């Protein structure tokens, strides 16, 4: 048990200090939060809470998930600054934006 804890601690230490993880819920045909500001290196994870599949598709095809059924997730690490607008390719009225800054 102690060994396992140590291993986890070592893993955590080995992660860069600036690495962050943020979750976006897909619920009631909306991305929540719809607009999000993150630092470079942030890993964003979308989780679908709806009873219907959704997708996460960047408008310039920078990233594109497959179909996310209920409880499925998709992650993307934002390594470059900028504005990334995305939508659900199944329900294009669902839109969101990630602003990545240094």
């Amino acid at each position: 048990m102690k060994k396992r804890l140590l291993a986890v601690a070592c893993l955590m230490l080995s992660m860069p200090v600036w690495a962050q993880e943020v979750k976006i819920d897909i619920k009631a045909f909306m991305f929540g939060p719809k607009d999000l500001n993150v630092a470079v290196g942030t890993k964003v994870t979308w989780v679908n809470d709806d009873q219907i599949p959704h997708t996460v598709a960047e408008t310039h095809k920078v990233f594109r998930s497959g179909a996310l059924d209920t409880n499925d997730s998709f992650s993307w690490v934002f390594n470059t600054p900028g504005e990334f607008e995305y939508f659900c390719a199944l329900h294009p009225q669902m839109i969101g934006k990630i602003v990545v800054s240094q």
Partner: protein
Amino acid sequence: MDIQSRHPIRTDGPLNPDRRTLLKCSAWAGAGVIWALSGGIPRAFALDAAGNVSDPKALASTFHFVQISDSHIGFNKEANPEPVKTLQVAIDKVIALPKPPALILHTGDITHLSKPEEFDTAAQLLKGLPSTVHYVPGEHDTLDEGGGTLYLERYGKGTKGNGWYSFDDHGVHFIALVNVFNFQAGREATLGADQLAWLADDLRAVTSSTPIVVFTHIPLWTVYQPWGWGTEDGDQAIAMLRKYGSVTVLNGHIHQVIQKVEGNITFHTARGTAYPQPAPGAAPTPGPMTVAADQLRNYLGITDVRATQGDHPLALIDSTLV
């Protein structure tokens, strides 16, 4: 006093609220209604409790075809854990028709997540239908990694672009349009310039007296913009169809019957065979509507379309899976 003279009972007109009329009205609520189109003017005929039409004008059809939609094989949530079963009920209903349909249209969302096994299951079931099935894809059929490759490999042979095509049957010109590719953020569905150019070219050889049936997944007209229930450039296709005497536009996607008539064009969306969706704006989201299990089949169904050669009326008969 002669009551009869003060309140003459009419037996010749529509204002006579006799028992027969009342029965017809109550049948509307229970069993459904048939729309017969003559010169673009729709006329409603009631169905009796058994789903039959008593008026011979509506029955005098020389051929008929069936529309099935939104099977969503692979869906397994509360609104219908067993869409395979309800699709089978729909198929059995088609098999049970007194006369086999000349053809069958499936207006998309055959599968829920475009998985190969979902396509396989659907194909296995739909093989049981008594006539040739003509397909268009729904957006749920384009979710594979290739963005529609699996659908097109299976159903796209001999079609143009992303699966559009036309054919003639019993003097009716059928046009299959595809509006589930190239979605743009915040926008409605699109047909695209290539498909519109093809449509204009396809219609060149069709005389204005030929009845036309257009079938596509997402409604060509905007049913409800906030939910994306419409096709942005659908009006360009509709404009090309205005000169024709009888045009019927059949859609799926919204899992409920909604009808609109514009000149000689009748727009009609069919029920699905998997799960119901709320009426436009009636719920916060268009997500699956869960109804009592013993009520579900009242919300699912098929559409039978009857055509009479000569004066070209098309009659649309929606029936539920009950």
